[in-house]
């Protein structure tokens, strides 16, 4: 810990207001998503606690029937928006983190295999990556999402929606990881410590995982942060289009979609607050990722 506090990295961090603020926002959002149960004044998805009379209450104004006030107002069903946003944040972050985790594991493994073993496996993996790069990743995610939904029995669709969402975003983002890892693996495998490992008869898997992997992980963490912002936005986009998180388990994207219906009838807050939350989250993750990249590896730019 002391070594970390004395490092150049930490010094650069204390010198960058941008990094401090963006990390602070991210940490705050992650904490409030994890602790949503305790922070949220109401459970927005317990139908019994909702009072339809509270519908369309403007922020910080007492409701004209019940007299209750809500920090950020309520939606059409009288649901407290602040609570809904906290729980939506939780879904958005969970999907984002899991999708990036999936993309990272997949991309790093395929990149290692392509870079170290080479040959036809390399060609196969990288051409697959090339093909995938020619489509926007949101389109790939929608394709995977649609196929998965078609394969699943109807009664499982709502339940599995989040899993399918993670799968489709994860599978659409592995390419960046694979390309970077393949490149650094090809550099590392020519180094003599790999020859030394081959001399004592280690098999390719042992060499890839024990020797090469620790040496190619640096840029991967940076890419993971930047991809997290992309994944959160992708999730929101999918949910906004109605192919993501279901209404029973809404993410920020779902909330924005719901709010959009009421924007032009004057209930602006139902759209605005979830949208602002998403903006703040994606922006600060992105800014922090950019700062990480510039600080840890200026060559990646």
């Amino acid at each position, binding site marked *: 810990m002391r070594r970390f506090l004395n490092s150049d990295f930490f010094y650069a961090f204390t010198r960058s207001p941008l990094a401090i603020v963006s990390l602070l926002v991210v940490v705050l959002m992650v904490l409030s998503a994890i602790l949503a149960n305790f922070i949220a004044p109401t459970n927005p998805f317990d139908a019994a606690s909702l009072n339809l009379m509270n519908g369309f209450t403007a922020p910080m104004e007492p409701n004209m029937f019940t007299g209750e006030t809500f920090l950020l107002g309520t939606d059409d069903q009288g649901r407290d928006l602040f609570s809904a946003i906290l729980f939506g944040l939780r879904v958005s972050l969970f999907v984002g983190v899991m999708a990036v985790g999936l993309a990272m594991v997949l991309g790093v493994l395929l990149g290692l295999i392509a870079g170290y073993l080479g040959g036809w496996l390399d060609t196969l993996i990288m051409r697959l990556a090339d093909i995938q790069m020619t489509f926007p990743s949101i389109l790939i995610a929608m394709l995977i999402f649609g196929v998965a939904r078609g394969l699943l029995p109807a009664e499982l669709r709502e339940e599995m929606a989040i899993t399918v969402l993670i799968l489709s975003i994860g599978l659409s983002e592995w390419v960046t990881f694979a390309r970077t890892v393949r490149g650094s693996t090809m550099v590392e495998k020519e*180094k*003599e410590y790999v020859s*030394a490992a081959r*001399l*004592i008869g*280690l098999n390719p898997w042992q060499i890839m995982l024990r020797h090469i992997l620790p*040496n190619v992980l640096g840029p991967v963490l940076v890419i993971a942060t930047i991809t997290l912002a992309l994944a959160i936005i992708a999730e929101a986009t999918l949910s906004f289009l109605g192919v993501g998180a279901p209404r029973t388990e809404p993410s920020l994207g779902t909330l924005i979609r719901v709010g959009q219906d009421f924007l032009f009838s004057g209930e602006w807050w139902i759209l605005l607050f979830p949208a602002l939350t998403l903006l703040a989250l994606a922006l600060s993750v992105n800014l922090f990722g950019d700062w990480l990249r510039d600080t840890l590896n200026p060559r990646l730019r």
Partner: protein
Amino acid sequence: MSFVVARDLSRTFNLSDPWIVRKLTMRPKRLLKAVDAVNFEIERGTTYALVGESGSGKSTIANMVVGLLAPSAGSITIDGQNLGDASMSRQEQQRLRRRIQMVFQSPYASLNPRWRVGDILSEPMRAFKLIDGATAQRKRVAQLLEQVGLSDSDASKFPHEFSGGQRQRISIARALASQPEVIICDEPTSALDVSVQAQVLNLLKSLQKEFGLTYLFITHDLAVVSTMANKIGVLNQGVLVEEQDTEDLFTTPREDYTKMLLSSAPKIDFDS
């Protein structure tokens, strides 16, 4: 029969374009003969040096001797056994691998930067199942570090905390960890400055005396060769042009190429 025997050792590299490009441009295959029918023998406990300019195929030979690269033709046998023998079981292969180790050229790239020295040195013990148990391995690591002139507290450090010469000592200790009989030294001192070169060479010499090691020395530096080698082979463009005992080669070189090499080596003449 000698301990290490190379018979008609050849290696061809395929530098051709991919098949489809070749067919479209109608160009023939391009092959590079890096090593062409090289023969040499090394007696147990002696040092054989291969000298030559860069591109003469020295390192290719080194890689073939340790089994990192398969020969295109010919064979390498060590104590009568051939590493390229496909009929060998995995266990037999490991037993033979243990007896042949290598010290590499670059002191910077030859040690994994993310591993502690102790882990680097104990890895061969685990791979060859030489020493079981963490305590016994740690003891052996300390012993190895002492043998190469480092202290046992260095085991917990990372490679970047050492100088080039010290790293080369770690590299030598790693080779010793598997208790080898042959060590191939691929330009072990060419990345070091002159005073450190002498220390590393002296270390290699004293280890040879202590463990009866057989060395194959790959170098372009004739000064290094003159102090280390019993026998010298001169390589030119993949062909072994001359082979003599060290003293004879320096006094009566037979080939023109060898004479040119000898005369082009920088000398310090204190009299003039």
